[in-house]
């Protein structure tokens, strides 16, 4: 185990300077060091998608990335996307459609859905299902989630038109 090393990054727009062990993964850094507990840890081996965050605009599994790899990047978590209003419509669609039960997969699911919804075209249901296929949900059976994402895509397209 080597000594702590300094790391500097932006988290939800705030500059963060930390001193972390090289082995500390980004999910643990967000949860334990920064207390951003909306990023959930489900499998710790990159399969379940619960820890999905956005780094420089791309979605990433924070359990598979070391904190020091995030040096100089801009990290966005569910707390950030909630507070800046970016996904307010998607969250409303999830609420309306009951697209969550226990809610543990939800932050990662919203992150991944928003990644698809940033594209201008309205995705069909199978495209939505494929895009979300790396995010595990044990409660809903996925249909309500697909419905909520589809409804949001249509509404955004209407607003653009």
């Amino acid at each position: 185990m080597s000594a702590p090393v300094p790391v500097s990054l932006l988290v939800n727009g705030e500059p963060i300077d930390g001193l972390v062990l090289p082995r500390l993964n980004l999910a643990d850094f967000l949860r334990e060091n920064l207390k951003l507990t909306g990023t959930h840890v489900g499998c710790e081996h990159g399969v379940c998608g619960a820890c999905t965050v956005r780094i420089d605009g791309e979605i990433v599994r924070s359990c598979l990335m070391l904190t020091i790899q995030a040096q100089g990047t801009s990290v966005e978590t569910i707390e950030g996307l909630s507070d800046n209003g970016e996904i307010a419509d998607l969250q409303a669609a999830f609420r309306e459609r009951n697209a969550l039960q226990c809610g543990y997969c939800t932050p990662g699911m919203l992150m991944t859905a928003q990644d698809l919804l940033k594209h201008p075209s309205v995705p069909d249901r199978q495209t939505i299902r494929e895009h979300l296929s790396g995010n595990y949900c044990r409660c809903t059976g996925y249909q309500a989630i697909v419905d909520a994402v589809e409804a949001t895509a249509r509404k955004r397209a209407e607003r653009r038109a």
Partner: protein
Amino acid sequence: MTVTRAPAEALSVLDRPNSYIGKTVPRPNLDRLLQGRGQYVSDLELPRMAHVVFLRSPHAHARIVAIDADAARRMSGVIAIVTGRELEAVITPWVGVLSHLKGLKSAPQHAIAVDRVCWQGEAVAAIVATSRAAAEDAMEHVSVGYEELEAVTDMRTALDPATPVIHASLGDNLAFERTLDAGDVDQALSESEVVEADFVFGRHTGVTLEPRAVVADWNAAEARLTIYQGTQAPHMVQNIAALHLGLREAQVRVICKDVGGSFGIKVHIYADEMATYALSKLLRRPVKFVADRVESFNTDIHARDHRCRGRIGVGPDGTITAFEIDDLTGIGPYSMYPRTSAIEANQVVNLVGGPYATANYRARARVVFQNKNVMCQYRAVGHPIACSVTEGLVDLAAAKIGMDPVEIRRRNLIADDAYPCASPSGMKFEQLSHHASLTKLLQMMDYDALRAEQMALRASNIHRGIGIASFIEVTNPSAAFYGVGGARISSQDGVAVRLDAQGSVICQTSITEQGQGSESLTAQIVGSVLGVSMERVRVILGDTDNTPYGGGTWASRGAGIGGEAALQAAKALRENVLKVAAAILQSTPAELDIVNDSIVNAADGAPRIELNELARTVYFRPDTLPPGIQPELMATRHFVPRQYPFAFTNGIQAAWLEVDTETGFVTLLKHWVVEDCGTIINPQLVDEQIRGGVVQGLGAALFEKCIYDERGQLTNANMADYLVPMSAEMPDIEIGHVVSPTQESELGAKGAGEAGTAGAAAAVANAVNDALRPFGAIITEIPLTPQVILTALGRI
């Protein structure tokens, strides 16, 4: 929606202006979860909190010769390293038996293994440190000497004389056996065509996305233990923790906030959780345990691993004359505590043949010990096995006599006007609706058109199948489930409702929330009965200090039992409020009503006084009330079913799928469910319970299996190798309802949480066999992996 019974009276307490009953309203407080601001136990931190990790046995069966933790104890951050022998002084062992399961036996189980480990994954030592990482670092420096013992792994040979007995004191490896013989099976079979098959079920587990998590906080100064745990049954945890730590129940508080999935996984008492409570007491500080994913696979209860030989007799006209089963299941080395591991096999005996009017039924179920992880109740306990065996046999019988699967069901399902009645296994049915459900299902799926499509596609070598499965579901369990067997698991629930000083309502309920919508249904019922808007109802649950005593949420009981308690409490509060209002307004309670947060005239709806004004008067100006009036703006009521041991529900499912006969892959195209859960409080929540349940059943049908080798090693204890349903492979699921309210409660609600899981695998298996009919292949094993299908097709 089809309603089979008219409401008893024209205007019930639920059928009021602005009622929320039967309406889709969003669940309260979802924003917390949507914004990543939930409070799961895995998020919790307390001052001076330590973290525990468990060193677990790599062997399925071994004697512990020595544990050397000296080097580990000297490592930075290590607080304590505790063995089973040391923890024994703090917490007593337990035996998972219940007296109503006659003959059930098990051996004492310790929080941490003492002298011997009985499955791969059993805890051998606890390492407590200032962080989880420090504890894991230290764990690598604890060395344990084992003397490996022969592992009992195959349930089929567990009872052979040559097989070692896991617990010598028990005499053999038989945990439980039940037999049943109703009617005259031999006579019936001798006069019928007989078909038989061996049904094989994979070992499944729940894979809750948040692993099991607990923070135990022993406050030595208060002599009180606070347990923060993701559990379905807080009062049960309170009782068991107190019992084994030598405390009074009043010294234990259990708090359960957000829970990241449960499905029956989090309704049991696990050894490592007991160890965490004990460690907190021993070390006089908060201790946190969160299972990692490998630990979840190795220690969360498994379920379903059954092999069941089934026989069915059928007459030339399609009459089913008899069912016979011989069921075998291996439950691991201990019967789980306190609900026991005999319940699933017991349910299989209870439920096989359940939808049908067949009087002749013989069953044997045997439950054996083995050196694998423990098995116990997981969503839809026993139902998927009973349903797959029953519906698989019915399809085989239909094929034998050349009858359509729908027709044979039409001829044998219990008639909708035959109720109340009982099954050959003694299950009492108040009112079911098999035929109305079947009719509705056929309409929804357009059965004839699908059959035509299937035939047309076969010509172009595309093999699609239709599978149908009727089922019954155990819901609203009375004391018959656990209480009569001596378990301190409450079958009654309580709700307290009070009007606060601004006319809002605070409602404390003993049922719990894991995402089903317990909070929502409680608020909907209370709001409707009281005449208060839902936004003004706040529901408190999951805290033994702050809710009435009750069972919690499991076995599809929350809406039916907790919901009725909420209804009765709200009725009582309403009566109290109207009494006060009558005194203030110089009227009578009968002349008044509560609508939209105000007291109004019952006759013309004219507003009289707002609830917040009434509350202000009661709390701050009681001097202005007439003499002799003592307002009670709080009411508590409890409810438990007494007339029927269980409120049975019923339903039917259909699967439409395609089998690629070259690769063995199954593509699910569509799934339908018609379900009868009685009064529907929130249609959306009911439908989503069913959809989620179906998908769990689809996972069982196609993907899920804990694969053990012959030495008892779990070889796929991770999410990359234990496959679960993901969004891309799942079909859209269409849901319909028939409504037969139970008359045992005013609410009339039965459960819906397990209906989806009960029948999904059976429908899929029948559909796969339907697709493969041209090839003469019959498969009675799940999961239906490509390997299983290609083997049946003779391609590998």
